[in-house]
């Protein structure tokens, strides 16, 4: 099947004019268009330094691998299976989607779709149910990326007859034998993933890239909030921004803080309060700026400031 992978990059080869043995790296880079994806990654994802570095490295390797293949320097298809570990809301799913489009642009996955599943979609209810179920998902993910969220639920150490083990075995087999057909990305919280890999050493060794997603710093969370607001056509007033800086500091030390996801929820609640505030005064004539801006009062009304829970 590696043959059809070659044919998907064939149009690029047809336009090749430089003599064999010489490669214009910049042209190659532009032709593939990963520059745009990487720039977009830098622009739209705040922070995540180690993640971005790793993705750049992978992208560079794949670019070189592509050129090597063209020059006839064959080598094994690089293993691209990855594991993303990190706390809730650190952008694992978002990055998985980006990875799929990078791999697709480089021609390492043929279609570039992402099939996102959890234990429920892979593991069956009764004997003989699991294998067809897992295989069906694998077939759907062929040519793209299979993203398994909270992968550690596949393995239930307390129940040795759990069907999860069967799913794991099928996954491992396909991950090994059809490396050029699909890329598997496992995601989950750091400590539990470590335990999962500990009890399934086969998984650990078949995954080449273990990427850890760090928590966001306060200023990064603020940038994320502003980016999200910008996307929704809102903005902070100066006082609201100052209040939100305080909000982040307070929210972070409370339980159940889940990084960017908590920020998004907080923003949604602030939009509610803003709408309520505007509707309270029906006789007022609103300007576009009124509707777009969040005031300090919208932020300060949060229960975080009154020492309660924000959720």
């Amino acid at each position, binding site marked *: 099947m590696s043959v059809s992978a070659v044919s998907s990059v064939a149009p690029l080869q047809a336009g090749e004019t430089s003599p064999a043995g010489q490669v214009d790296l910049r042209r190659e880079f532009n032709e593939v268009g990963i520059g745009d994806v990487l720039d977009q990654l830098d622009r739209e994802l705040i922070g995540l330094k180690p993640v971005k570095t790793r993705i750049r490295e992978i992208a560079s390797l794949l670019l070189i691998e592509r050129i090597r293949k063209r020059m006839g320097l064959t080598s094994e298809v690089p293993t691209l299976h990855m594991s993303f570990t990190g706390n809730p809301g650190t952008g694992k799913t978002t990055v998985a989607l980006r990875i799929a489009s990078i791999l697709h642009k480089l021609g390492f996955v043929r279609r570039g779709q992402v099939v996102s599943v959890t234990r429920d979609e892979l593991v069956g209810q009764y004997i003989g149910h699991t294998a067809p179920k897992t295989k069906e998902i694998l*077939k759907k993910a*062929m040519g793209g990326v299979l993203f398994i969220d909270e992968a550690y639920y596949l393995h239930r150490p307390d129940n040795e007859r759990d069907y999860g083990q069967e799913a794991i075995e099928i996954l491992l087999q396909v991950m090994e034998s059809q490396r050029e057909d699909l890329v598997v990305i496992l995601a989950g919280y750091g400590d539990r993933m470590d335990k999962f890999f500990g009890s399934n050493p086969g998984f650990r060794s078949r995954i080449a890239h273990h990427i850890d997603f760090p928590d966001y710093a306060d200023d990064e969370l603020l940038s994320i909030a502003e980016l999200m607001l910008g996307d929704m056509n809102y903005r902070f007033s100066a006082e609201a921004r100052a209040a939100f800086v305080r909000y982040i500091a307070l929210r972070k030390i409370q339980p159940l803080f889940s990084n960017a996801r908590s920020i998004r929820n907080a923003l949604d609640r602030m939009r509610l309060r803003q709408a309520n505030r505007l509707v309270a005064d029906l006789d007022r004539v609103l300007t576009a700026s009124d509707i777009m801006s969040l005031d300090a009062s919208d932020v300060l009304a949060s229960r975080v400031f009154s020492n309660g829970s924000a959720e």
Partner: protein
Amino acid sequence: MRVTQGCFSFLPDLTDQQISAQVQYCLGKGWAVNIEFTDDPHPRNTFWEMWGLPMFDLRDAAGVMMELTECRKVYGDRYIRMSAFDSSPGWESVRMSFIVNRPKDEPGFRLERHEVEGRNIRYTTKSYAADRPEGVRYGGK
């Protein structure tokens, strides 16, 4: 005698690469591909057995090829065909069907003449293979 049913049957057998390309064409059209097998090659036998369910929502031929490999492992001595179903009219209709696996030795068909009233003759075709019981027709296990 070589059985000719479905698309491409007058061409040399398709290679896996060619099968994969045809399957990809079907998937690109949004059709669901199904694998079926039989050891009764009579042209009027339309009920081939299904290998699993038709494969819906696939994007890449690799998934279908994986199933074909599995099916060949079990029923490599029989006829295997792929059918592509199009559901866009509101019902499933076969758009394309082609044989992807055939027995090594195909004994072919005999013509039987049946003399009936007057000097009339009725004709029927019978597969030599079908003389043997199901499952062992092509030297099965």
